[in-house]
């Protein structure tokens, strides 16, 4: 359109006109430089309005506010002659178009406008851009609330499906975990938080633990807890989950010492229990051992045996295994050598660790003694050995052997000239019947075995004085203790390698076998021996020990002595 623009410039009260001819399809009005009619003012946008020719009239369209046509706010209008348009403080009055023009406008600029408001032609601040604080604040807050709380909460309250859908990663209560589960729990429970956290806003209850760990023994029988009025702690006090890195058991002495530092302080507490405050002879009770005790009762012409257990203080405790065995002699290479290799004996010749690294395989006559201690009884038949175990059978074997020896003419003729010793002459020169001679020889040998140098070398033998040869001697049964301190844990294998000792030397640093001349010696070292290397605190020259390095809170058996008795 062709527009005649007459600008009314009033300075010092004198009116002046400046006419401009604007020719364009669209007359642009705004505060930007490139607008055909540039208006300044804080209310004026860069592109505020447009004028177009429309069938003899002028069409006004605005993009900004603050536009009034004849005093009324509007967004668009068709203007006729003498219509007044106010944009901000600027006034445009439509005049009659002279020839050659589509329209004419008389324009009076806002006299109060400051050139400084020219800034509004541009986007000069971050607030003019798309940036917003409110929108991201809402989006982030709602996202956190929905994904972090509402979804997991809905899943919990729904509660029908305990098995989380592995594909639905976005919708899970696993976001609430405060750390990884222990690997075993992770396998068994996985993402099922409700397996342990059964009631919202309640700490994990023991029931949840016992649902799986039903077989676990409590620290002491529940009745003891009640009788002693002792406090029972939740499982989760010692077993803390969701740690990083994952661990399940708080290995702290404090947890034990809370009660054991002063057991008498517990109402109706166990009176016999001694206080523990550390791991040395002042702060820890001396070791106590479970001793097997034989009980021999007269029965008929002999004795019957039973075994019992009693607890005893280690200091001065003596073992009654009924075995005669001097460790010192066996470990002296000048006195005893192995049959095969002719070397001195080592501990491991008899003591072999079992898979638990704590206990040793049982020692038997057949496996450990018989290589040296053959049970020969007739020098003229060195291959013949007595059976080990049943005394009556032993005597019967001898009877059979000698009966044959005396009754067999060939054997007697062959052997007699070769094997004759003065002390045995009576046997070989027996003049009675073969049976009588055999019985006489047997009797001599039975005395020899049970009372002079056979069985009696290792066994305790009771002479009953009976005429009957079968009941004349009673051999005491042997029972070796498998574990003198059944309530404690000790890793023998790790102790086989020490700073300055390995193998036998390592064994002998703790077990005084070299100087022990009787099997009554326990050879279990006391607490001072442990203290040579271990203490209850961190220091450069000792290896620290916690209570549970040796003790178990959940014992393998509820009452160790009873357990051992059951398994005698």
């Amino acid at each position, binding site marked *: 359109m062709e527009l005649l623009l007459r600008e009314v410039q009033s300075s010092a009260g004198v009116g002046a006109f400046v006419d401009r001819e604007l020719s364009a399809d669209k007359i642009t009005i705004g505060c930007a430089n490139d607008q055909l009619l540039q208006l300044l003012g804080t209310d004026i946008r860069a592109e505020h309005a447009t004028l177009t020719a429309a069938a003899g009239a002028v069409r006004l369209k605005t993009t900004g506010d603050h536009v009034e046509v004849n005093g009324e706010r509007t967004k668009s209008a068709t203007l006729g002659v003498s219509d007044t348009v106010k944009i901000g403080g600027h006034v445009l009055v439509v005049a009659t178009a002279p020839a050659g023009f589509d329209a004419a406008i008389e324009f009076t600029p806002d006299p109060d406008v*400051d050139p*400084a408001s020219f800034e509004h032609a541009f986007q000069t601040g971050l607030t003019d851009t798309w*940036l917003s604080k409110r929108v991201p604040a809402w989006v982030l807050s709602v996202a956190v609330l929905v994904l972090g709380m509402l979804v997991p909460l809905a899943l919990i309250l729904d509660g029908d499906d305990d098995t989380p859908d592995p594909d639905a990663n976005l919708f899970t209560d696993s976001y609430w975990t405060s750390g990884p589960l222990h690997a075993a729990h992770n396998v068994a429970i996985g993402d099922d938080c409700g397996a342990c956290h059964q009631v919202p806003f309640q700490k994990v209850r023991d029931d949840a633990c016992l649902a799986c760990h039903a077989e676990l023994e409590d620290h002491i029988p529940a009745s003891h807890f009640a009788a002693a009025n002792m406090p029972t702690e939740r499982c989760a006090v010692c077993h803390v989950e969701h740690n990083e890195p994952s661990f399940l058991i708080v290995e702290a002495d404090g947890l034990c010492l809370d009660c054991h530092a002063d057991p008498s302080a517990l109402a109706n507490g166990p009176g016999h229990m001694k206080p523990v405050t550390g791991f040395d002879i002042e702060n820890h009770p001396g070791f106590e051992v479970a001793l097997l005790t034989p009980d021999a009762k007269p029965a008929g012409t002999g004795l019957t045996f039973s075994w019992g257990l009693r607890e005893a203080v280690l200091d001065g405790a003596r073992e009654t295994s009924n075995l005669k065995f001097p460790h010192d002699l066996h470990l002296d290479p000048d006195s005893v050598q192995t049959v095969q290799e002719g070397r001195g004996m080592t501990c491991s010749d008899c003591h072999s660790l079992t898979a638990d690294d704590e206990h040793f395989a049982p020692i038997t006559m057949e496996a450990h003694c018989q290589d040296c201690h053959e049970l020969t009884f007739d020098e003229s038949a060195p291959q013949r050995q007595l059976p080990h175990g049943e005394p009556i059978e032993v005597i019967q074997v001898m009877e059979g052997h000698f009966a044959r020896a005396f009754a067999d003419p060939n054997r007697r003729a062959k052997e007699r000239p070769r094997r004759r010793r003065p002390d045995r002459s009576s046997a070989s020169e027996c003049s009675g019947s073969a049976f009588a001679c055999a019985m006489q020889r047997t009797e001599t040998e039975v005395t020899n075995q049970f009372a002079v140098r056979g069985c009696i070398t290792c066994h305790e033998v009771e002479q009953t004085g009976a005429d009957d040869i079968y009941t004349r001697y009673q051999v005491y049964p042997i029972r070796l203790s498998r574990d003198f301190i059944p309530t404690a844990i000790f890793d023998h294998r790790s102790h086989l390698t020490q700073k300055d000792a390995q193998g036998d030397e390592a064994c002998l640093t703790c077990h005084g076998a070299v100087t022990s001349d009787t099997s009554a010696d326990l050879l279990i070292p006391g607490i001072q021996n442990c203290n040579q290397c271990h203490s209850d605190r961190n220091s450069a020259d000792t290896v620290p020990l916690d209570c549970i390095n040796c003790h178990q809170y959940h014992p393998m058996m509820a009452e160790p002595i009873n357990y051992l008795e059951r398994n005698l």
Partner: protein
Amino acid sequence: MFENIFRYRGSRYLWWSLGLVVVSVGLYASHNASNPPSGSSWQGYTLGTVGALLIVWLAWLGIRKRSYASNMGSVQGWTSAHIYLGTAVLIIASLHSALEFGWNVHTVAYVLMCLVIFSGFYGLHVYINYPHSLSDNRIGGSRQSLFAELYDLNTRGMTLVGNCSADLQRAISSSIERTGIGGGVIAQLLASDASLVTSEAGKPVSNKDQQYVIDQVAERIPKAEKAQEVIALEEMLSLLCRRQTILRRIRKDIQLEGWLRIWLYVHVPLTLALIVALVVHIIATFVYW
């Protein structure tokens, strides 16, 4: 101004915050083997409670210190407290977390808190460094005075341009009309100049830093045949160069103001998200106690 923030009342809030941190570290150090460090030890709960209260209070402070009409303490005082205690809360919350992190709502709260605090550190950095550059750039004036001068130069330029040849007229008037200032977020922050000019061929070409049009006018001066033309061209050249200087200052001003405020677009929304995450964290903790 920043000296007042840091040394407000003998650095009162610095000492408060240091005290708080020392107590928190002591509390953390009191963990032992039977009570290993974690958010759920009694020390952890204490540190968490203190941290959460501090976060809420700091957020409230952020609002409070902006209302200048308040009678409650000075702006400097609130800002000083906001900075020192905000830094302290980073350490307190880290101790509360025992530095155990994972893909969970608890870590979300921690990460949001770190983002809020570190964006705050950036804000502190610009508040310390930029106001100087800003006033240096305005040479004692204001942005309005720069724009007023620009408008004046534009108006004079459009008047003077009548004395020039037709092609220069087109170049100069189009350079004035198509001068770019500010713009979008990136343009403001980088002070990029999208100014254009209509070339002799009638096409818009870049007039970055007004250099194109200045070169055009400068080239004409030696070629001018009349002394009058030389005077007119020199007047125009000096005007365009002054305009170039003003435009540089305006862009620098917009840029500095932009950096001075952009961090708030991170700091404020994340603070609100943090408070929501904090509530979620606390509820989640106690639902699954």
